[in-house]
């Protein structure tokens, strides 16, 4: 796992720098506008984009064909991509947390905090099996579609939050966390299965 992560970090140095800059810009914009939508949207995007870029390189370089012959278990190869997304999501969460602490809009409570994180996990959970199955080129369009849908849902939810009661917010929080966990588990199992049966 460590070797795979190292490979992705070194291979994606330029992309990581670019996405980190974008994350910082969106962080500043969120602070300036007192709007968590910007940083949460970027957090969701980075959670998908980094593993997508890593897999795009792997396809171009035939790394997947190489690594499958290295004796590493398919589970480890697949889990590394989930972990890669989650590592960058975590960096996004830190910045999102700062905005939430310092400059969140009125009406938003801590019950609303987990929703963008759940959305990022769901986005990754839907995108990765598609990428493993269809390959990066075919799955890229689908992934962009998923990203738009999730961002639209998120923005809609933000408008919705300040109009509902705390008890409903609590319920939404619990449902979103369970949904994210459910998607993640099903997604990992599906991806491992896809990867195991794939011809390279």
């Amino acid at each position, binding site marked *: 796992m460590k*070797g795979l992560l190292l490979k992705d970090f*070194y291979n994606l140095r330029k992309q990581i720098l670019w996405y980190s800059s974008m994350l910082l810009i969106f962080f500043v914009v969120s602070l300036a506008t007192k709007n968590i939508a910007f940083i949460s949207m970027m957090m969701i995007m980075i959670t998908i984009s980094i593993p997508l870029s890593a897999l795009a390189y792997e396809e171009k370089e035939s790394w997947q064909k*190489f690594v499958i*012959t290295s*004796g*590493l278990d398919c589970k480890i190869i697949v889990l590394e991509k989930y972990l890669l997304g989650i590592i960058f999501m975590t960096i996004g969460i830190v910045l999102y947390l700062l905005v939430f602490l310092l400059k969140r809009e009125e009406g938003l409570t801590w019950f609303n905090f987990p929703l963008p994180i759940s959305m990022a996990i769901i986005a990754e959970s839907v995108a990765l099996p598609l990428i493993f199955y269809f390959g990066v080129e075919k799955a890229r369009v689908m992934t962009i579609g998923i990203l738009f849908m999730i961002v639209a849902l998120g923005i809609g939810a933000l408008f919705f939050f300040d109009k509902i009661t705390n008890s409903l917010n609590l319920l939404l929080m619990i449902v979103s966390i369970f949904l994210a966990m459910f998607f993640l588990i099903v997604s990992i199992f599906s991806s491992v299965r896809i990867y195991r049966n794939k*011809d390279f």
Partner: protein
Amino acid sequence: MDSLVVKNLNKHYTNFDLVNVSFCVPRGAIVGLIGENGAGKSTVIKSIVGAVHPDEGSIFLWGKEQSRLTAAEKQKIAVVLDDTGLPMEVDLKILDRIMANIFDRWDRRKFRDLVLKMELPLDKPIKEFSKGMKAKAAIAVALAHDSEFLVLDEPTSGLDPVVREEILDLLYDYIQDGARSILISSHITSDLEKLCDSIVYIHRGRVLLDAEKDSILESYVIFSCEEKILKELPASNVERFIKREFGVDVLAKKKEIPKGFVYRRVSLEDIMLFYSKGERL
């Protein structure tokens, strides 16, 4: 014990079928897989290393079914792919660090020695390497993790003769201890003619020939004659023939050559040519 046994391997694709491919690689031997582009060599190699799932058939490595090999046993197979499979954005120093975390028995000193021996730059991203340098880097990776069976898919394709010779020397070194084996596919038959103990010739997804190299080169000869003379020869004497503008070229078993015919030795390239383009009598 054989390092590799492939039995009745079948794989169906829309435009191509691999049909009942069987052969073995004895311990300590170098076996060459030859065939035209698209003959099925890469599919066979990918099946052996687990990158392709055959529809039918079995693959045994050191007597154990490939699907049952443990991670440690799988790492005793070293693989060099035609497109290297290495991360292109990193240099060899970083690649060394990456591989040390992938292969349990990665030998950092050996890798550095190989890189020095091959005169590869340590600080240059692999994407800036020439084709020959990339091939050498892939071989250095394959040789640096204490493997017992080396599988190479077209490692010398597109390389100049000097680099090809250097690669062949590394392969000779690898096999020296007598316990290791090599399976190498190539359509550059002259390389395999120098290197291999046995040859497996695959044509349109089927094994046409599986024999010791020396026996192939000693058993067959080529001669030219007029078409009417060819028709007078017993069919069993003629392996394949190719019609030319003036007469025919005939591939025949040496011991069955009629007296008085002037013949020449065959090369593996001739064998491939006659089997793929030639006709039977």
